[in-house]
C-alpha cells in the first residue's frame, strides 16, 4: 500500500471519515504539517510589521496548516474538497472560515483581495483526472487563473507539492507561468529522500528585487544528513528522467544489396502472389550513379 494516495481515489473519496480521523490523530503527520506550514509562511515573506493579513489556505483539510496561520496572527479562509476533513476542522474550532469546493473549478473570490496564499500537499491532486468530465490541464488552468486574479498585487502564493515525477512538476509550473505568475521552486534538503520538500513560490506582478526566490535548506551542505535511523544514506542524487533517449544510429551498409539478394526477394514476392517482372540479364545490373 505504498502507492501514492492520488492514484487510489479522488480526494473527496480518499479522505473519508476514517482517513480524516487517522490523518488528524497521527501526531507525526501533525508535526510534519506544522513544519511545512511554518516554512511556507516563512517563504511567503509577509512584511514583518505585525499587521495581520488575510491569507488563503488551499486544501486546508482538517485545519492543521490553518492553525499555524492563526498562531502567526493572520486571518485566513480555507478551501477543501473533502467534507470529512472539513468536519474535523470544525470540530477543532479553527479560526478561519471554511469553504467546501473544488479548487480546479475556480476559487470564487473577488479580484485582488487576498494578501497571500499557502497550500500544503494539495495541488498535486489536480494532476489526476478523477472524473470523465475532468481534464487536468483545464483544472490547472482554472485554478491558477483564479488564484492569480484573487491575489493582491505583490502578493505571493507558496504551494508545497508532492509531484509524482518530473512531468507533473513541469505541468504544474507551466500552468502557473501561463496564468501570469513569476517565481520558481524552492527545494529543501534536495539530497534526502525522506526530508525533501518542494515549494512552488509564485509572485503576482512584475519580478523585482523583493521577489527574489530564497534558496532551499540544506543546499550549502550544512545539516544535510539524515538523523533518522532508517539506514538509507543521503547520497541519493535527484533522478532526472530522460525524455529523449539517444536513438541508436542506423548502420549504413556501404556494400549495398547484390544481385543475389534481389533475385531472392523477387522469388519471395512471386511466392506471395505479387506481380513481379521476370528475371533477365538486366536484373540488378549496376546502374550509373546518376540513375
Amino acid at each position, binding site marked *: 500500500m505504498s502507492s501514492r494516495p492520488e492514484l487510489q481515489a479522488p480526494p473527496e473519496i480518499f479522505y473519508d471519515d476514517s482517513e480524516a480521523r487517522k490523518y488528524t490523530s497521527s501526531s507525526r503527520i501533525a508535526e510534519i504539517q506544522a513544519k511545512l506550514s511554518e516554512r511556507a509562511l516563512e517563504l511567503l515573506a509577509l512584511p514583518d510589521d505585525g*499587521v495581520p*493579513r*488575510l491569507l488563503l489556505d488551499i486544501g486546508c483539510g482538517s485545519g492543521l496548516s490553518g492553525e499555524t496561520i492563526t498562531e502567526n496572527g493572520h486571518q485566513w479562509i480555507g478551501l477543501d474538497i473533502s467534507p470529512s476533513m472539513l*468536519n474535523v476542522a470544525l470540530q477543532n474550532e479553527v479560526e478561519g472560515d471554511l*469553504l467546501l469546493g473544488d479548487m480546479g*473549478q*475556480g476559487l470564487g473570490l*473577488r479580484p485582488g483581495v487576498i494578501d497571500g496564499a499557502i497550500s500544503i500537499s494539495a495541488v498535486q491532486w489536480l494532476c489526476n483526472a478523477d*472524473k470523465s468530465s475532468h481534464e487536468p490541464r483545464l483544472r490547472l488552468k482554472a485554478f491558477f487563473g483564479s488564484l492569480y486574479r484573487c491575489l493582491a498585487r505583490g502578493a505571493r502564493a507558496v504551494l508545497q507539492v508532492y509531484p509524482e515525477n518530473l512531468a507533473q512538476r513541469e505541468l504544474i509550473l507551466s500552468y502557473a507561468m501561463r496564468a501570469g505568475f513569476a517565481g520558481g521552486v524552492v527545494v529543501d534538503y534536495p539530497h534526502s529522500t525522506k526530508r525533501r520538500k518542494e515549494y512552488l513560490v509564485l509572485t503576482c506582478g512584475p519580478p523585482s528585487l523583493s521577489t527574489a526566490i530564497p534558496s532551499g535548506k540544506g543546499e550549502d551542505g550544512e545539516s544535510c544528513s539524515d538523523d533518522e535511523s532508517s539506514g538509507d544514506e543521503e547520497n541519493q542524487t535527484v533522478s532526472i528522467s530522460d525524455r529523449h533517449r539517444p536513438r541508436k544510429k542506423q548502420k549504413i551498409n556501404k556494400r549495398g544489396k547484390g544481385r543475389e539478394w534481389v533475385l531472392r526477394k523477387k522469388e519471395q514476392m512471386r511466392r506471395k502472389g505479387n506481380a513481379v517482372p521476370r528475371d533477365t540479364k538486366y536484373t540488378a545490373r549496376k546502374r550509373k550513379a546518376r540513375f
Partner: protein
Amino acid sequence: MRLLTHNMLSSNIKGVTNGFPLRIQVEKVVEKEVEINHDFLRNIFPKIDWKALSDASRIMGYNELPEVPPEPSVLESDIEILRKFHHALLELHLEEGALLCPETGRSFRLIRVFRICFYSRMRFEKMVWCLIRLRFGDYEF
C-alpha cells in the same frame, strides 16, 4: 461564516458576469467576541466593499454601520467607527442560512446538518459549492 469572508466571495457559476455580492438568507446569527486589532482593520479597509458590508450587516441585524464609507484618515483616529467596523466584520457570525447567487439565484447553503442531506445537494460537476459551518456540540443525535 463571518462577513469578512462574505465580502470576498463571488459566485463562480459559469456564465455569471457579476457574482458579487452574494445575497444573504439569514436563519441564525451568532455574535462572538473577537479581540480587536486596529492595524488589521486599517489594512483590510481598502479591500472591503463597504456597501456590501453595510447591507449584509443590516440583514444580519446590526444597524450601527454607516452607509457611507469613512475616509481612511478618519479610521486612523476614530476608535468608535473602528469598533463598529470590527463588530460587523469579524464578530457577526452567520451560523445557519444560505447565500444566493445574485444572477442565477442558485443557493449555497450553510449547513449544520451532519453529512446526511449534504451529498444530495452536492453536485460537483455543476460547480456548486457549499459553505459548511458545523457546530459539533450544539446538535443532538
